């Protein structure tokens, strides 16, 4: 279960605004987190608290393949991202590093900045505690759930190899 305050953004949040390329030369998670979202929201890093939830519109994470993007968001303190849809490389990257993302157009449309939100990622249930609304995210295929349960792609592969 994740519980926190919502940070709300629009459609097509690209990886260049999630973490600008000028910071990619220092790929430690802590360094990346200091600059997360700064090109569209200078206050994000100052305001975000551990456990908070990021909400985006369509095509969240479009652009570059940089895994630094979900790494930066996670290291900033955000516990999970809800969006109407995700760009496919961001989607893969988040799953591969074991960072929870939920696809839910209704929640993405209805949740506002500052709303208190709780998320049961296993069941895909999103609750807006401020308004009382409950939303259901699109479930992941079973195969992807296995990667998430193992904590990411590499632990999944290592465990799979060990089980042979």
């Amino acid at each position, binding site marked *: 279960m994740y519980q926190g305050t919502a940070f709300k953004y629009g459609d097509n949040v690209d990886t260049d605004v999630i973490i600008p390329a000028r910071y990619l030369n220092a790929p430690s998670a802590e360094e990346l987190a200091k600059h997360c979202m700064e090109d569209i929201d200078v206050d994000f890093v100052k305001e975000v608290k551990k456990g908070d939830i990021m909400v985006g519109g369509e095509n969240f994470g479009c652009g570059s393949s940089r895994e630094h993007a979900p790494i930066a968001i996670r290291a900033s303190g955000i516990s999970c991202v809800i969006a109407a849809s995700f760009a496919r490389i961001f989607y893969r*990257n988040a799953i591969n590093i074991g960072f929870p993302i939920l696809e839910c157009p209704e929640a993405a449309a209805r949740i506002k900045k500052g709303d208190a939100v709780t998320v049961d990622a296993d069941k895909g249930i999103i609750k807006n505690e401020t308004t009382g609304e409950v939303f259901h995210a699109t479930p992941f295929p079973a195969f992807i759930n296995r990667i998430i349960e193992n904590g990411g*792609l590499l632990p999944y592969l290592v465990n799979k190899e060990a089980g042979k």
Partner: protein
Amino acid sequence: MGMTMTQKILAAHAGLSAVKAGDLIEAKLDIVLGNDVTTPVAVDVFDKAGFTRVFDKDKIAIVLDHYTPCKDIKSAELCKTAREFAKRFDITHFYDVGAVGIEHALLPEKGIVGPGDCIIGADSHTCTYGALGAFSTGVGSTDMAAGMATGENWFKVPSAIKVVLKGKLQPFVSGKDVILHLIGMIGVDGALYKSLEFVGEGVSALTMDDRFSIANMAIEAGAKNGIFPVDEQTMAYVKDRFTRPVRVFEADADAEYEREVIIDLDTLKPTVALPHLPSNTKTVDEVKGMPIDQVVIGSCTNGRIGDLRAAAAILKGKKVAKGVRCIVIPATEEVYLQSIKEGLTQIFIEAGCAVSTPTCGPCLGGHMGCMAAGERAVATTNRNFVGRMGHVKSEVILASPAVAAASAVAGAIASPYDMEV
């Protein structure tokens, strides 16, 4: 039900007789690619997982192209990490300064990728190799690490949009205009999770460099991959470059497409994308006269010899407008050398351009042409997001080499048709 070209390649690499859209499969990889930004993260993941060997040292490509020659100490550390990994596993296709080119121009040129391949690369523009009739898609660093260790990766089989090309491009209209026009039509998520399959009689009239530019920007429509059929031009390109057996896949006659889009090449006009999305397209005539500070001609989208020829044809005997900086970046050493042999480099320098060694550099606001607040560039690159080429208040307008060169001369957005050539 038949399969698309992409589905056939994926089925063959998964050892299956048939796949359909939505299937989750594990496919064998022909090439796994990384660069100086993404490889160090992959090395970290690879080592932490405890892997001690790579699946095939001949099937991994590591290309130090983004911040090289290293712009600062931190970048030098990244390159060192990637370089040491390449040395540790004796990686065959490792390219460092002096031999390096922008990865997506370099791999086809060196024959490392070819028709029928299944390729992943930790760079979003890995979709470029679809121009050769390969399945090729961008992934992250963890996928790269997994690919290097196992030689396989998981894919969700994509559905497809059929893009039918008709007719033939007019002079000064190029592959860049085709792909910008398409993204303008369908949007930056118009092909999300899907393949863009380019077909029709118009394909044969496109040069390989046009096809590389088009496939390169499939990602800017959200696509998983863009792909072209293999024809005589493809075979002529890969001859003397690609040494593995060529595998030609064709879509079935009854393949299912989610949507069909028709582009009439005859009537297509030079097209630009205004800030801050590649889908924000206009014909150049609609926005002529917008003042600019910088022009960048290069990148994995438009740094090939055909692109430099198009730019030089406009710049020959002319000068870059006062107050405008024009930066020309040949995508590879081979392109650079050819540009010198053909006299293109001389044309650029005499016109007042800065000509750089191959690098991704300014495209991602890395180095070699970052912009200050309030500045505007016309660039042959692929993204015009907020802050992409420098300051958050700078602007990038995407265009073809011909439009970029004409704009450099005019000092404002200009049409190549208005130039005397």
